[in-house]
């Protein structure tokens, strides 16, 4: 178990700068997730830590060992870094049985035979594959193959476990299951985990801390899942954590207008109480908007209503802007608040966040 530290790391492919002066510390024993859109360089960071890529600048430490340094010309190859890696495409060796796959790291390390067999059996049992030791990978399902990869990565007791979108190729149900299992395994083994994904649900469920990366390879925010969800640093982070409504507003003298039509939005009046005058970006989730028949001063028109069972999903038009609204079915029916397409309604807002400006949202996904 060890801490991993990246200091001012840069990686370029030709003229394309993937990451630039990248700094982060993964604490000993924690599970840190890099969450970002595809192509943002999160996998490159993982590969730099694993030693599959060399940085163009900066230093990487695993524990107290300097493993990569462009300036000092230090480069420890992957096999000397005591890491475990699980890849998106499993990377289970097709010509070896489950047992042979899992025991391979121990064979390479020349662990004594009986001990190696014992540890292999334990690792296979840990990921729930006991009894399948002699099967070849093609005889197993995708989820089972990913479990082999997990057992293989853990059997040699690595200092850090690197997981590169390991659940992507699995179906939704299996993904949920595996997510709990990885969490369990970490509790059992106490291994430090770096998890790379673009799936915010997995990140929230699994991580001790999350680092949000943008398309340019910069870290926008690092924090616990609750911090990230409740106190997003900017509109980019907010948008990445779920379905979002953004309303560009202008405020002055305790009143707010829609930027587009200069209509006053009374329902968002409360945003004008604090902060400076000028342009702001109001942001909220679909469940933070309430549709009502009482006059709140902010009128909208229902464009589309879709019944989804427990909830109803609306698209409403406010001054030419489409907002997503989610309504609890039971509440809507008992309060007679079902709206039809084309109907007029009033809006009420809860938990609205305001950000300085909109520019940061662009370029997402």
């Amino acid at each position, binding site marked *: 178990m060890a801490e991993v530290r990246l200091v001012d790391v840069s990686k370029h492919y030709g003229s394309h700068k993937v990451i630039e002066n990248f700094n982060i510390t993964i604490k000993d024993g924690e599970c840190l997730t890099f969450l970002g859109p595809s192509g943002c360089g999160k996998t490159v960071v993982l590969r730099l830590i*694993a030693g*599959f890529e060399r940085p163009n600048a900066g230093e990487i430490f695993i524990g107290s060992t300097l493993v990569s340094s462009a300036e000092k010309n230090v480069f420890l190859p992957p096999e000397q870094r005591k890491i475990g890696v699980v*890849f998106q495409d499993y*990377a289970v060796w097709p010509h070896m049985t489950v047992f042979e796959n899992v025991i391979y*790291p121990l064979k*390479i390390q020349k662990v004594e035979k009986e001990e190696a067999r014992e540890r292999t059996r334990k690792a296979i049992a840990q990921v729930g594959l006991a009894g399948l030791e002699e099967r070849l990978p093609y005889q197993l399902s995708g989820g089972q193959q990913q479990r082999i990869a997990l057992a293989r990565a853990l059997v040699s007791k690595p200092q850090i476990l690197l997981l590169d979108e390991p659940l992507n190729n699995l179906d939704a149900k299996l993904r949920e299951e595996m997510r709990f299992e990885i969490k369990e395994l970490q509790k059992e083994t106490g291994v430090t985990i770096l998890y790379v994904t673009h799936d915010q649900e997995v990140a929230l469920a699994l991580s001790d801390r999350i680092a949000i990366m943008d398309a340019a390879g910069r870290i926008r925010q690092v924090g616990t899942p609750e911090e990230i969800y409740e106190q997003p640093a900017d509109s980019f982070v907010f948008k990445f954590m779920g379905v979002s409504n953004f309303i560009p507003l202008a405020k002055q003298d305790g009143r707010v207008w829609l930027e587009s039509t200069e209509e006053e939005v009374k329902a968002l009046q409360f945003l004008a109480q604090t902060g400076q005058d000028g342009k702001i970006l109001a942001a909220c989730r679909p469940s933070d908007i309430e549709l009502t028949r009482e006059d709140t001063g902010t009128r909208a028109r229902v464009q589309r209503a879709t019944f989804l069972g427990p909830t109803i999903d609306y698209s409403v038009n406010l001054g030419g802007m489409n907002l997503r609204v989610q309504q609890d079915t039971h509440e809507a029916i008992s309060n007679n608040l079902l709206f039809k397409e084309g109907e007029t309604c009033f809006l009420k807002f809860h938990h609205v966040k305001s950000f300085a400006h909109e520019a940061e949202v662009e370029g997402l996904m």
Partner: protein
Amino acid sequence: MKFPRLAKGLSGLKKFGVAELVLLVSIAILVVVVAFPILLIFWNAFTTPEGKFNLKDVVTILSQPQTYEALWNSVVIAAGVTALSTVLGVFFAWLVTRTDLPFKNLMKLLFVVPFMLPSFIGAIAWKILCSPRGGYLNVFLVNLLGLEKAPFNVYTMTGIIIVETMYLFPFVFIQVSGALERMDPTLEESALISGIDLFTITRKITFPLITPSFVAGALLVAMYSLSHFGVPSVLGQNAGIYNIPTLIYQAIHASGGSFNAIRTGTVLASLLVLAAALILYLQNLVLKKGRYQIIAGKSMRPMLLKLRGLRVPMLVLSILYIAVTVLLPTVIIFLVGALKTYGLPLKFTNMTLDNLKYIFTWKMTRDSIKNSVILSVGAAVVTMLVGTMISYVIVKAKVKGKFILEFLGMLPYSVPGTVIALGVILAWSGKFGINLYNTAGIIFVAYIARYMAFALKSTSASLEQVHDSLEEASRACGASHWQALKDIVLPLIKPGMISAFFMIFFPALRELTTSVLLYGPTTRTIGVAIYALHEDGETVYATALASIALVIIVIGEIIIRRLSKAERRNA
């Protein structure tokens, strides 16, 4: 490239790891074996012995009537063979994939069989059958129909084109039938639903979709035919018909390898290289344009055209085609190989096994079998191993300067066998310190150059299927680069390596075009021995040796099929 890095001193040297070393070795091998000999050809063609630039001789050689006649013949033969092969290949491919022809799977197999028969042996058979004087088929028809003169004359351009086509058309057939099988049938079905008739669909949808495949196959045929020695030599020389490869052979043999002859050869060879480069360029153009994603990787059930009344006639036509192009020549080779004297009627009482016995006891023929087996096994093993190494660098390694290797790796594809032979003579005849002339070594080097393309193709294809993460996973498990190669990569590409071995072994075993320019008194190969015996009028011994070669080839093919089937079952 390497110099600025070396200038960095010791710190730079540290970066010089396994990948860089392997890259350098790979480049060195390709330069020595392929690039250097080819450069020598151009050098030799355009300079005097003193090393001065010289265009006068080039102009003289090119303005000789026999040169441009040969060039014209090469072009006409290549064009004719390509056109005919394309028509036959597309037609038969369509017949076995898109109609309800009976015994389709068997027929599909049979149409590839012509590949097994070496084309120069086929040419010898057709000469025996259709020579205007005394050809067995001619005599038979004259007697049967009471004709005044022989109906067929195989010693003509038409004869050469037809015989070459018989053995080259599978190139097109394989490409097109593959594309037709992989094509998504919904593309045609949706047109059918829109009420378009099957003929229009074939013309407007199916045909454009398979265009890239048949053009690729056709260009392959053109390239092969342009530099083909065997058939034009066996059938053309009597009638004074020369193409570029046979003219080169003639020039060098007539003079016993004099400087002027070699100079003539190199000028002609330069023409071949240019033609091959042009064809390769066209092929890339077509393939780039034709990357239709709609031809999927998996096979699907296409809709079949009902032949109705034509079903049986089409089957008969197909069987007849195979019988005439494969069965008849093979049978005639075996029969003539057993005759007591050439020219006797093909009766059982005229047959003997003495010829075979003689082949195995006569030193020249026995040595030729031994030479061919040793050379082709050796070349196959070495080329397969070197090819695997080079493919690994091209496909997998992350190393600067890889593009040099990618370029060099393209070269073997584009160099005709005759050219390789000439280049090898120039490079390995003592001028640069090593003299392999008249030894088996020079043929060995030539085979490596000639078949490197096959090894690169087969091994790089299987390396591409080994995803990078498999190797990286083993590095992460603590394996060094070498251990990862040994434990993971090599076991996974073994089938590709084995198939590379056989893709080299069999063509090398029956090789003629290159060996015929390189053999010495004790280093004849089977191909050379058959060719020489035939040239000397020893037709009976030539065919007897040819029948032994055919038996070896057929047994070998059966073994490969068994092996690859077993391999597929294990995978």
